[in-house]
């Protein structure tokens, strides 16, 4: 470091060697030579002491990933399929069949798997049909849910008030939508019953507040989708940007909003 830091000038080669000496990666003649220099120079000894102190503090950092993070990453990791040798032709046939099945799924998005996220997001264009109240037992929730997954009350934290709800049936699934309004802007929040719906291909994965989301644009509408307790949630708006949607969607209300 230079004299401007209160330490005498040490040339760059010596700096590098001191870094190596401090973490034990300097060996041989270079090490012996530097150790002799350090023994003869209080300035070098001080510099080495600071390097060692920093190495000790940095390598002793007691930080571990939380069990929740491990679980989320384990859920991300695909299970490794058993490795078997197959004839190329069998693989090709299997690949073609898989591609055909995938194409069928893509061409016919609705069916046993329920609606697509995009279909669900388009419910935002429909009007509310019923009022929705705040949960009498928890003011961070609304008195509306799908299979036990409640809608959040964003009014206290963000100023977004609930402006009504509607229920639809999409491909055999119940989809309840709550509309929120704030400053002339509108957001639709839909929860779909049944098993989680995969995120659309091409959507952007993003993590906020420990929750894994996918965001996409559908026409002029921003859409964010994720799962809560295994149920698909979709928030969408033509008036609100993706960052604000993510901030609202990831709000946990100090644990009141279950994910």
């Amino acid at each position: 470091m230079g004299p401007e830091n209160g330490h005498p000038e040490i040339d760059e080669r010596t700096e590098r060697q001191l870094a190596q000496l401090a973490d034990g990666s300097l060996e041989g003649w270079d090490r012996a030579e530097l150790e002799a220099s350090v023994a003869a120079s209080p300035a070098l000894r001080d510099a080495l002491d600071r390097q060692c102190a920093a190495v000790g503090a940095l390598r002793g950092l007691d930080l571990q990933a939380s069990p929740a993070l491990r679980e989320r990453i384990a859920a991300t990791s695909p299970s490794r399929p058993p490795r078997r040798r197959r004839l190329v032709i069998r693989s090709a046939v299997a690949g073609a069949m898989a591609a055909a099945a995938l194409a069928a799924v893509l061409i016919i998005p609705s069916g046993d798997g329920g609606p697509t996220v995009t279909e669900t997001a388009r419910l935002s264009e429909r009007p509310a049909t019923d009022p929705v109240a705040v949960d009498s037992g928890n003011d961070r929730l609304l008195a509306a849910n799908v299979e036990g997954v409640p809608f959040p009350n964003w009014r206290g934290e963000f100023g977004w008030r609930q402006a009504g709800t509607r229920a639809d049936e999409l491909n055999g699934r119940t989809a309840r939508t709550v509309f929120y309004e704030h400053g002339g802007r509108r957001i639709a929040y839909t929860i779909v019953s049944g098993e989680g719906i995969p995120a659309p291909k091409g959507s952007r994965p993003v993590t906020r507040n420990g929750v894994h989301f996918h965001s996409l644009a559908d026409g002029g509408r921003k859409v964010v989708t994720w799962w809560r307790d295994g149920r698909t949630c979709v928030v969408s708006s033509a008036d609100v940007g993706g960052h604000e949607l993510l901030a609202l969607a990831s709000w946990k209300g100090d644990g009141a909003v279950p994910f």
Partner: protein
Amino acid sequence: MLVQGERRRLDPETAGDHIDRLFRAACALCGSRQLAEDLVQETYVKVLARPRFLRRDDDLGYLIKALRNTWYSHLRNERIRRESTSSPDHEPDELPARSATGDPESSLEASAVLDALADLPQPYREAVAAVDVAGLSYAEAARALGVRQGTIMSRLYRGREQVAQAVGQA
């Protein structure tokens, strides 16, 4: 062991073995435990989204490089968000948390070290995070960060120097 020029597929199952070291490196980069979790998860989601082929037995180095890219994306998005938002009441939420202070799970000592790391210039912080926090060798860190090994050593020296001074004063 790989022969030079040979490529190996990153094993999705063993990639998970590096979560702790990646998490520590993320904490060192961003200074916030919560944001570090988000960065690590997002890194794994991206890396495991499709097969990855490595030229070396250097899974952790590859993951650190991916983590750094995720961190840069986060910084870019936050900058765009700040520039496009005029409302001052959004500002505190948009800035990356610099410190672990207040995080009950972090010890005071860890908080002091993370505070010191947060004050380092970005190149020094990255070198320290890669070598001293994540445990990469100089050569692995040089590949992950795209600089020469000598540069890593110089940045490491200067980064440690500043950390030692900051922690010593804390």
